[in-house]
């Protein structure tokens, strides 16, 4: 075409005009820390594995999850999911059912027999782990992945710690527990049962261990001074729940009173019901709001017919099973005060669920340790005062949950690994938090949370069948897809679409995007319209 001068122009000629020169601010793709990741005591990359689950890549999701936590099927049943509490979706409609999806992935893995790969090479180092509870198992998993030789020594007859001897079957079926434990052992972890360590240093030297991780838990029941007759049937919650694992179930009788307000108390009461008690009564000195037990567990218990006597303390127990109970009243500071009013309560047995202490005997004589409030003090590197002896879980100061224990195990493993090679482990600095105000929630469609099905009431109280069911695959997928992917690009193409200057380059599936700074004018629409807050504006430096 013989185009007239200046009036008619060739296509593409505007590319000579580099409008990027106009900018005073430029956009930057960032990865922000999702609040779920931030809240998880086990440090899972929750957003990361949900991302995989969303597209139906369940094995990839499971492998992403188990990078940090080897026990998802267990977590999906017993974790108190602080991730869900901090989930940004909760500010939109309801939190994503992260816990349900984790359980689904864990169950899928067990169903399909997905295995952990054993490490490629051995490091030549040996690590002793004392206690086969969640913390010890987690440490074993991570240390084994680092290539170290790992041996777990467990005092009890079975592995699992509180997962086996504290959490009832109706919350955590034993085949699930066994499956996840075995999978770790299959990596080449040695397990010695029925073997209590009495002197840690000696045991280490004898076995030529280069380091040790102690995770003995806290399974000595605290006692309160309650005067009781000789024949009064008074037990502690720890031993009651432990004995549930044996051949002989505990004989609690028809009317069982449980003293205490934590989850253990509820576990015992609900167990008692299942064992045939007609009445299971919890006696707690404060009110429901003050009860340390989780609310949903209280709900489930009440649904099952457990009774709770608030604002009451037990003064004594007579031989015939009569308890003297004093009513309490909360004072201005919320502390219960005796009122001087008494009543009686008949009970075939009284179970004390007043908290647990650590058996620190294996640390006797070990120099350099700091013991405070019945727990071992450890540094930021999970090491005790004795070089090479690390500790975690309920035996160190912590919020005593399975997930925290698992988190300690991972953290300790990393520090042990570094220590074994003469280095220190410095965790990478955390990204900026992806708070709700950084999201653009308009882009998320309404999708209320999927509720997990509950076992019918009648069956709940007569069997130890799992009370809370799992999600079907459709539901789990739906639930995973409710994730807002806070702070992490999930390739929604918004930035690519909303740029008026066509200054975003789409690199292809899985490769995200890049800004074309030759033309970006720094308007910031991409930042405003990124649904998950994965872009921010920074000033131009020149």
């Amino acid at each position, binding site marked *: 075409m013989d185009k007239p*001068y*200046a*009036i008619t122009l060739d296509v593409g000629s505007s590319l000579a005009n580099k409008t990027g020169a106009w900018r005073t601010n430029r956009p930057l793709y960032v990865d922000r820390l999702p609040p779920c990741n931030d809240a998880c005591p086990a440090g899972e990359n929750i957003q990361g594995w949900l991302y995989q689950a969303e597209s139906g890549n369940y094995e990839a999701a499971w492998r992403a999850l188990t990078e940090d936590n080897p026990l998802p099927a267990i977590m999906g049943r017993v974790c108190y999911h602080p991730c869900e509490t901090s989930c940004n979706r909760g500010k939109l409609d309801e939190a994503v059912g992260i816990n349900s999806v984790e359980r689904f992935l864990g169950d899928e893995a067990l169903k399909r027999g997905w295995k952990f790969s054993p490490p490629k090479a051995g490091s030549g180092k040996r690590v002793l782990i004392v206690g086969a509870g969640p913390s010890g198992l987690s440490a074993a998993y991570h240390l084994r992945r680092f290539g170290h030789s790992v041996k777990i020594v467990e005092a009890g007859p079975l592995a699992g710690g509180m997962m086996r001897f504290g959490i009832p079957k109706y919350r955590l079926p034993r085949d699930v527990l066994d499956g996840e434990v075995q999978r770790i052992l299959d990596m080449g972890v040695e397990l010695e049962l029925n073997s209590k360590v009495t002197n840690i240093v000696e045991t280490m030297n004898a076995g030529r261990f280069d380091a040790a991780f102690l995770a003995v838990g806290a399974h000595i029941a605290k006692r309160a001074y309650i005067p009781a007759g000789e024949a009064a049937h008074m037990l502690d919650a720890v031993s009651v729940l432990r004995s549930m694992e044996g051949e002989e179930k505990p004989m609690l009788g028809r009317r069982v009173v449980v003293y205490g307000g934590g989850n253990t108390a509820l576990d015992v009461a609900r167990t008692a019901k299942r064992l045939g008690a007609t009445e299971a009564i919890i006696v707690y000195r404060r009110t429901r709001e003050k009860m340390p037990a989780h609310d949903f567990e209280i709900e489930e218990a009440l649904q099952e017919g457990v009774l709770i006597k608030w604002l009451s303390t037990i003064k004594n127990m007579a031989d015939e099973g009569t308890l003297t109970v004093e009513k309490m009243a909360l004072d201005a500071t919320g502390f219960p005060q005796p009122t001087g009013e008494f009543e009686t309560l008949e009970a075939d047995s009284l179970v004390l669920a007043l908290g647990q202490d650590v058996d620190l005997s294996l640390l006797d004589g070990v120099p350099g340790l700091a013991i405070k409030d019945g727990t071992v003090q450890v540094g930021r590197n999970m090491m005790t005062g004795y070089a090479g002896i690390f500790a975690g879980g309920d035996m160190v100061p912590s919020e005593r949950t399975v997930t925290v224990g698992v988190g300690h195990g991972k953290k300790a493993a990393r520090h042990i690994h570094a220590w074994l090679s003469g280095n220190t482990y410095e965790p990478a600095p955390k990204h900026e938090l992806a708070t709700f105000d950084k999201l653009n929630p308009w882009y998320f469609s309404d999708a209320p949370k999927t509720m997990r099905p509950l076992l019918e009431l009648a069956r709940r109280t007569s069997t130890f069948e799992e009370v809370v069911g799992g999600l079907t695959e459709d539901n789990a997928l739906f639930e995973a897809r409710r994730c807002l992917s806070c702070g992490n690009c999930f390739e929604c193409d918004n930035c690519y679409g909303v740029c008026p200057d066509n200054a975003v380059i789409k690199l292809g599936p899985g490769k995200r995007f890049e800004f074309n700074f030759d033309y970006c004018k720094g308007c910031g629409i991409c930042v405003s319209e990124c649904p998950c807050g994965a872009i921010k504006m920074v000033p131009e430096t020149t």
Partner: protein
Amino acid sequence: MLKQTEGSHAVAEAIALCRPQVICAYPITPQTHIVEGLGEMVKAEELVGCEFINVESEFAALSVAIGASAAGVRAYTATSSQGLLFMAEAVYNAAGLGLPIVMTIGNRAIGAPINIWNDHSDSMSMRDAGWIQLYAETNQEALDLHIQAFRLAEELSCPVMVCMDGFILTHAYDRVDVPTQEQVDAFLPRYDPRQMLDPADPVSIGAMVGPEAFTEVRYLSHHKQLRALRLIPELAATFRKQFGRDSGGLIRTYRTEDAETIVVALGSVNGTVQEVVDEMRATGSRIGSVSICSFRPFPLAVLREALQGAKRVVVLEKCLAVGLGGIVSDGVRKSLSGIVLNGYTVIAGLGGRAITRASLRRLFEDAERDELDQVTFLDLNADVVSHELERESESRRSGPTAEAILRRIGTVASHIG
């Protein structure tokens, strides 16, 4: 083929022979018969491969033609007077974009006061828009010029206005020779656009051009018209060869070889002028006339050549540069730059007033005696004018001028002179 037909219809037939592809029609006296004729031909499927579009204004008419032409098809429209002014923006636009649209102007006076009769004020108002302007002397020439216009426009990529006097030519029945389709096809090839809107080869037409390039663009359009000065006579020569008659060209001289007085005029009045020249030649006057066909580009060189030997030049104009005098005179004066002779501007025929042989005779004789003013209004009713001036000076609220004059002279158009 010889025909006795109305001027408008002759033009319509000529256009149809040129294989137009898009025709836009908006009615305005006195061109309407042209587009009506074409509309009938399209509707009767005598003219095929052509879209006939009834638009809602003259502005739309030329705009539709602009779109069609830019999209690579041969486009045509016609207008007059107020309509031409209404599309003024588009007139400049078409020339600026270099689109080879052909448009007939049925010359008509521009209001206010509203007047439907012939003069050249309409096409003159657009003389500098960049269009080529050709003036037809006869119905035959009007027909022929359109055929030449399409070829001229498309070779140069410049729009062309063919001007024909309203009513005098458009509505007059005259004998014309309508060429055959073969003859026209042999003269006018298919339209091959210089630029075109085409998805296969996209371009952006109509960019904004700033100070750094605007002058060059304008120079190039000026240069285009200078090339036309060569091309127009060439095409006329080719036309004569193929069709056997003289039509078009830059100017036509009549008995000017030894003339002392030469009259210059545009359009149909040249017929009357030539008759008076013959009359006066018969009584010994050395007088001749020049008919300017191509007003844009203005034929400075050939006009100089034709006029330089005379003692005096009378420019007879059907238009008025208000506050100055003549429009055509300006161009004529320029062509005579450096040559000393007496130049007279005569404003005649405004608003369709008849130009009679008797008036012209008187005028030319006055000219021979050099007894003409610089600017003369032919057959001006001095009585009416002086009466009106007096009336206006008497009171401030003197009312509308035109209506006052009409009241004085009686009915409209009854006074011919």
